[in-house]
């Protein structure tokens, strides 16, 4: 199937007083239409920055983002807003912080509709918003409530309704369930999956929770310090993961069995600073298998099996 999104060598650097912070460094990947790419990695590895750079909430430093063949990273922001703003939407991490506390549920959902449908009358906007509420499973009686009166799941539904009301094709889900209770996480994940089936949506699903990503993704990309270290089909990462960092991440998934013996791979060492990093494997400082080559040369992303990309000098060893 055709790729909806092709990201090529995308870079996002932030200039800080101590130097250039490489938040997203040379990231390359594709997402097929109707599929979900799960992006995992620890806090601060640039997952959210990657999502926000795709949305042009951050200006990309370098690289290309082809959305249906059109380079959205390098077009003027005005043109992007006109052509693609509605097409690429985002569901935010924290539904407590990402909704204006002074707006009622209906107002929050009407807002995007009003911006993108100038010709609508008030009644049309309202009926469209109410339709969206029903669509994401929010009762009509909540329309005059304020976000602070609702639980996290309902609030996240508001966020989803806001994003969906613009009929996007691609949605960046920035840890949409990490702030929710486990019981509600499942509801929201199911809602997202149903919507994907209904509307043929394409997701980039950012999370640090391996069990969530397993549930929802077709492909999984593992990020470490701004770089993509491994990308493969979802089933494969749980069976045949190659990169040592992915192995460590997977060993962190708790096994719900008291008697199971569990070899956890404990990582030692400090996180390498993302500010002006040296040209070496960024995981080398914590990697138990690191060699001199790892400390001297940056590994490139190589296709080790069909559809399975790894950035590790010693990938052959772990296959």
């Amino acid at each position, binding site marked *: 199937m055709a790729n909806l999104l092709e990201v090529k060598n995308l870079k996002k650097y932030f200039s800080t007083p101590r130097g250039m912070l490489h938040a997203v460094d040379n990231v390359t990947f594709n997402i097929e239409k109707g599929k979900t790419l799960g992006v995992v990695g620890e806090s601060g590895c640039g997952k959210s920055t990657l999502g926000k750079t795709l949305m042009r909430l951050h200006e990309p430093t370098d690289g290309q983002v082809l959305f249906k063949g059109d380079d959205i990273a390098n077009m003027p922001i005005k043109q992007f807003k006109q052509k693609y703003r509605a097409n690429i939407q985002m569901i935010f991490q924290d539904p407590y912080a990402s909704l204006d506390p002074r707006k009622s549920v209906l107002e929050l959902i009407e807002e995007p509709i009003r911006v993108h449908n100038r010709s609508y009358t008030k009644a049309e906007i309202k009926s469209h918003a109410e339709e969206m509420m029903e669509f994401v499973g929010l009762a009509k009686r909540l329309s005059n409530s*304020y976000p602070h009166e609702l639980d996290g799941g309902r609030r996240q539904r508001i966020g989803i309704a806001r994003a969906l009301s613009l009929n996007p094709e691609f949605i960046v889900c920035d840890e949409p369930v990490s702030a929710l209770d486990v019981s509600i996480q499942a509801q929201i994940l199911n809602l997202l999956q149903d919507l994907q089936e209904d509307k043929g949506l394409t997701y980039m699903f950012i999370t640090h929770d391996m069990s969530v990503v397993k549930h929802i993704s077709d492909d999984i990309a593992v990020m470490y310090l701004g770089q993509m270290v491994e990308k493969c089909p979802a089933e494969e990462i749980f069976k045949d993961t190659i990169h040592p960092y992915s192995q460590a991440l997977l060993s962190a998934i708790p096994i719900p069995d008291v008697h199971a013996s569990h070899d956890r791979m404990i990582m030692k060492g400090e996180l390498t600073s993302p500010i002006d990093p040296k040209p070496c494997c960024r995981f080398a400082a914590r990697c138990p298998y690191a060699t001199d080559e790892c400390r001297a040369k940056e590994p490139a992303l190589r296709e080790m099996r069909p559809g399975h990309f790894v950035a590790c000098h010693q990938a052959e060893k772990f296959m």
Partner: protein
Amino acid sequence: MAKIHTPAMEKIEKRNARRKKPAVSTPSSEAWKRFKRNPTALIGLAVVAVLILIAIFAPLIAPFDYQQQNYAEMMKAPSIKHLFGTDQFGRDIFSRVVYGTRYSLIIALFCTVAAFFSGGLLGIIAGYFGGKVDMVIMRIMDIFQAIPMIMMAMCIVAVLGNGIPQLVAAIMFASMPTMARNNRAAILRVRGNDYIESAEAIGLSRFKIIVSHMIPNAVGVMIIYFVGFLAVSIMMMSSMSYIGVGLAAPTPEWGLILNDGKAYITTAPYMMLFPALMIMITCFAFNLMGDGLRDAFDPRLK
């Protein structure tokens, strides 16, 4: 099953019908609820309300004209006829103080509004755009702040002469930096929130984001500064009149009445006591109200 009615049930039903439906809880209504529960804030509000009434009905309350001189009754101590005594021209100080309320409140309001729309707006712009814009605006404000307030007032009066507009301008310039700083901080606090990014993500324009998300969320804090600033401008106005760069005699401004009385402080202390008390009470009331508003809008700031 038929519904059974007992007198007790009817009573309960009646009571329920009397009860108002629970109001929708908006952040503003929550704030008002908190404000109502705060006795000191209510005292402040009551005193301010009384002062406003005094200002409106000054001609009805004051027994004499504030300019009327009476050489038969100069420097009289407070009595039933002259509640606050009389000054060296035989003018009734009570009447002067009552009329002074008008000047103080109106000029304070003008000063605050002027400062708010000059400094405050600059602060909002600086806070939203950040970067170079912020840098330029705030450095200009720093320069303003480096000039002593009284000196600036004196310069303005020296160039433009005495009068209410000049006084307002002087206080406005002197207070612009603080206003700008406060509003900038309020906007910065809101700007960091996720919902601003979310508004950007759904394609709202910058102007729309400022007007419909940032200002409504920062307005609570801004009102607090606004009310607090009323007290500050009354103080500034009185001190400027007192040293002679504010309003000109015979305006019954509190600072001027103080100035009139300063020569007689040993023989007739009441001449200074009452206007000073009024200044104190007014500022105190505004401050109480401001604190109450702060607690009401943002309990975390306490």
